């Protein structure tokens, strides 16, 4: 249940951000050529929406195990070895996502300390970094759940 609501919320967020990026770019181009006035700060808004859209997709891609992987060798190995390697890979994915979330959190703290914001729109960057960190943290959680389920042979 939680899983379905979260999946829907994240997909919807990414979807809205993508449509907004598209609309904003078009508005910017049309504004510049037809009305001689591009949308101020479209550039900055696009950057932030892109980052949020990518990281919103991270828990989804992680949950479905869709990260690009080479199975060439795995398909040749005996089952027990594959089992062991897959558990190791699951663990590493979890640890690396956790590390990434921590890095982005640290980045957020630095940005907050300096009070960095975008030049034209003045959007503060620290909350963006914290949001990316939270989404990555969620992906790490998803990776942990998936690793445990796979360990128990549930998925």
């Amino acid at each position, binding site marked *: 249940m939680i899983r379905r609501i979260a999946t829907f919320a994240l997909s919807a967020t990414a979807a809205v951000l993508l449509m907004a990026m598209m609309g904003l770019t078009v508005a*910017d181009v049309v504004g510049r050529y037809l009305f001689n006035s591009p949308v101020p700060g479209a550039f900055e808004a696009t950057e932030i929406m892109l980052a949020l859209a990518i990281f919103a997709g991270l828990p989804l891609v992680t949950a479905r195990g869709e990260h*690009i992987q*080479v199975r060439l060798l795995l398909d040749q190995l005996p089952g027990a070895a594959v089992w062991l390697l897959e558990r190791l890979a699951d663990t590493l994915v979890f640890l690396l996502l956790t590390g990434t979330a921590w890095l982005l959190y640290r980045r957020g703290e630095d940005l907050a300390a300096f009070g960095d914001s975008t030049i034209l729109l003045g959007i503060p960057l620290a909350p963006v970094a914290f949001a990316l960190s939270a989404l990555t943290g969620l992906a790490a959680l998803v990776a942990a759940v998936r690793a445990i389920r796979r360990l128990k042979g549930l998925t």
Partner: protein
Amino acid sequence: MGIEPWLPGLVALLALILLGLPIAFAMGLVGTVGLVVLVGPRGALSIASNTLFDTGLSYTLSVVPLFILMGNFVTRAGLSDKLYAACYAWLGARRGGLAMATAVACGGFSAVCGSSLATAATMGKVALPSMRRYGTSDSLAAGVIAAGGTLGILIPPSVILVIYGVTTGQNIGALFIAGIIPGVLGILGYMAAVRVTCALNPAAGPRGPSTTLREKLAATRGVLGVLALFLLVIGGIYAGIFTATEAAGVGAFGAFVIALVSGKLTLRTLGEALAETAATTTMMFSVLAGALVFAHFINLAGLPAALTGFADRVDWPPFAILALILAFYLVLGMVLESLSMVLLTVPIFAPLVAGLGYDLIWFGIVVVVMTEISLITPPVGLNVFVLKTVLPDVPLGSIFKGVVPFILADIVRVGLLLAIPGLALWLPSLMG
């Protein structure tokens, strides 16, 4: 001089990838560990965190999801069926005509879609049923779709060319324009491959029923939407009206409108198109971020410099070194998928190639054509596996067999590009 740190780095990376760690994570892990060794934990973590944050917040890279979105809208608008119908109307009644029509339709679809896998999957669903109905052999049918699909990353827009442009600092618009003529050569080469196959084995590609002029014209009208979209996006870049990013936004919007008008866009399919775009984007950016961290490490560890030094020392003609690099791509392409291959190799080779005096726009096109070949060569020809899912009853071996004439056509194309760099560089030189 001890052992250079990039060597264990590369070995560890290949080992982790082969042992099944997702590529993005393998590159990020080895890159970060390597940086810790080279510059200490503080510097390493700061490079890693900057890379992650800056890759996400990159205006140039917003072109990636927007072009993916454009392709997804176009697919859902059913343009692939219309494209195939139009190509069939003109070519279908010739010997091997259905297969030739497929090659051209794949090229047409590539002009609004930046991904090879999507092109192969989409055209597979459209063209296979009709090729089978009229008795085209399974191996020719599968071969032409797998090969035609590879055009997706060469004929603009192309996601791989965007990534190449970002990694090497080349103009993405110029790269797109440079891909046009080699892409058209690709279509012609694949048509020739079909003709040769049918000449050797006339049963492989029987003729389809012929069509009247009126039917031809009616079918052609169906592709005006695709044509208009391509002219808007690529023409806009060519004429200097749009940057690549703006073109992507406008193109996605145009495709959205076409999908709306086609009446096939419901809230459900809209949601699917967007969700699919988001997932593909995240997958690609994960690999990109990992690769950029790894590239930092490789650069600091001095691999590009070592290669340039090696090239100086051996004093071979530049052409010989280039041939060596291309051979390396052929081998690596058998193991890695296309995005990872480009991301892993380009930061290493681009400085060397530029140092030899080659143009990096031209090299980008050559790399993409080599990547196209890797998409259809065993054992990891991804396009072949995509087709296998569309065509479960055809053995993998016969698909790979069907692909052989197309690989030969590709090799001729690489040869032409090497001999006549103008094939890639002439159009960009005229850009506004």
